């Protein structure tokens, strides 16, 4: 089909492209969110481990 036919989808463009567009947005978001979380998790854990190390290195310094 021609490019214009592709975009028009026989007059149903709104429905077809909204469906595919929404699907793309939702599935991308669901896919990317664990990737972003992982970065945060690593950061948080790193900070936590450093904290734990510091607490160990200065024991009972009342």
């Amino acid at each position, binding site marked *: 089909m021609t490019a214009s036919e592709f975009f028009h989808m026989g007059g*149903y463009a709104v*429905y077809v492209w909204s*469906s*595919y567009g*929404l699907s793309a947005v939702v599935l991308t978001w*669901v*896919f990317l969110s*664990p990737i972003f*979380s992982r970065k945060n998790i*690593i950061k948080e854990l790193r900070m936590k481990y450093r904290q734990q190390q510091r607490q160990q290195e200065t024991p009972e310094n009342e």
Partner: protein
Amino acid sequence: MKLPAIVHKFSSPKNFYTMSGKLIPWFVWGFLLTLIAGLYYGFFVAPPDYQQGESYRIMFVHVPAAWMSMFIYMVMATSGAIGLIWRIKTADLMASASAPIGAAFTFLALVTGSLWGKPMWGTYWVWDARLTSELILLFLYLGFIALQASIEDPRNAARAGAVLALVGVVNIPIIHYSVEWWSTLHQGATVTKLDKPSIHITMLIPLLLMAVSFKLYYLASVLMRARGEILLREQNSRWVKEIVENDSK
């Protein structure tokens, strides 16, 4: 009931983490390839429908999404059951990681179905047996997610979720059957075109390609979520500490 030793080997969080790390790229590539193939076939090879014209192409996301919504629920319930009965942590993780993905597919099935319904039936919503069952499925997913979110202890959250998911599984055929009964008795809506399609092969191929593509997507996504959760839960173990230290990003 004793499980074969091999299951125990894969059920350790560390092994799961390592193995899934290797599998994920394969799943992602597979997903992308089948996605492109399916979309190309679906838009450029499959002809317009005799009655619905071009609008039927929504089917290539709508139907696979609906299939995934049911498939993922079964995986969720099954892994929940495995975690409940044999107390395998990674099974618990699979269940809770699957839930948001399943809910997303259910939501997409409903919305794309609605968008397909407007040109097809003239209305965005109709209390058709399938739409209604799918809506209730969305409630079951959201209930599962809400329940797990409200329980602090991860072990208890997993067990409670598993019980709920299993009760839901028993209910899914009941709900589906009741809703079908109810909607055939209130028949006023036109019969769904999907009911008896003798589907043309050029339409079947992209449909199956998209279905496979979504499955690979699910596998990649669920493993990524599960891995993140493993890092948190096993944070006091040495192997996690090593991973965090060595992570350059």
